[in-house]
């Protein structure tokens, strides 16, 4: 289906956490910086902005007043994440990366983006939650590892310096 020599697509999911930033830097160091300027992959950086209503997690009469504030705050965070990611790419001289922000659940968004762009690789960080947190909050990295239609790299920020 792909015509011509198009580069394989790599999707990197980022949020505002340190682990995400580390994952992006790791990816750029490993797969992009050493090959400049002919990068072996086309880089697509995705941020999933949580939906204001779902982020609040409660319903009730008061919610109408709070939603705009939460929404503004989430938009602000998303803008910061995009800027940070752009900054990291610049600092490693990686140009041509595409960035997109979507609203909704990271799990589904990342898998959909992989399908839409026929990505061959998905990279996500890992918050390193314990077993109970993972059961309650759910793990985006685990979901993506099993449901994305491509290979998945889960990058962990090392706790111990080797």
């Amino acid at each position, binding site marked *: 289906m792909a015509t011509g020599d198009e580069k394989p697509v790599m999707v990197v999911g980022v949020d505002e956490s340190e682990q995400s930033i580390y994952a992006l830097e*790791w990816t750029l160091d490993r797969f992009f*910086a*050493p090959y400049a300027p002919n990068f072996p992959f086309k880089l697509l950086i995705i941020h999933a902005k949580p939906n204001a209503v779902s982020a609040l997690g409660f319903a009730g009469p008061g919610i109408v007043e709070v939603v705009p504030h939460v929404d503004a705050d989430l938009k602000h965070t998303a803008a910061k994440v995009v800027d940070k990611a752009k900054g990291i790419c610049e600092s490693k001289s990686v140009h041509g990366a595409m960035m997109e922000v979507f609203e909704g659940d990271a799990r589904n968004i990342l898998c959909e983006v992989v399908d839409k762009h026929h990505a*061959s690789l998905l990279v996500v960080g*890992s918050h390193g939650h314990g*077993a109970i947190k*993972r059961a309650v909050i759910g*793990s985006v*990295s*685990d979901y993506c*590892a*099993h449901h*994305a*239609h*491509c*290979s*998945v*790299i*889960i*990058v*962990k920020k*090392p*706790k*111990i310096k*080797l």
Partner: protein
Amino acid sequence: MTKDRKIGIAMDFSESSKNALKWAIDNLADKGDTLYIIHTLPTSDAESRNALWIESGSPLIPLVEFREPKIMEHYGVKIDIACLDMLDTGSRKKEVNVVTKLYWGDAREKLIDAVKELKLDSIVMGSRGLSALQRIIMGSVSSFVIDHAPCPVTIVKDN
């Protein structure tokens, strides 16, 4: 600025883990890196001659020995031609070292042990493609490794 990396590959000789090996050789391996093929055997397989290695796994087996059916018979491992071919070609093309380490016990735990003991920079594995319910009932090796490995984990799918 690439430093010599240690890349672990979980190998059970299934199609999926051979895919993972191929992916690792094609995409991750660089000149000077070392590929550690990690294979886990059930504890019941451990006869007296292997009892020495139940605790900490076998010594590191270089590729030349891994190719020899007689040597691998001692460990109770049947050699897999496709896997050996991939390792042979890959190691020559990419100029990487290849060693194998065998463990006896539960694959989940031993893979994590391997990462810690061998100080692997990352680990690559296939996925059996179990459904969510199957993963809960049978247990998922990849989920466990994702959860506990102190290094980046790559799950390779067969597309």
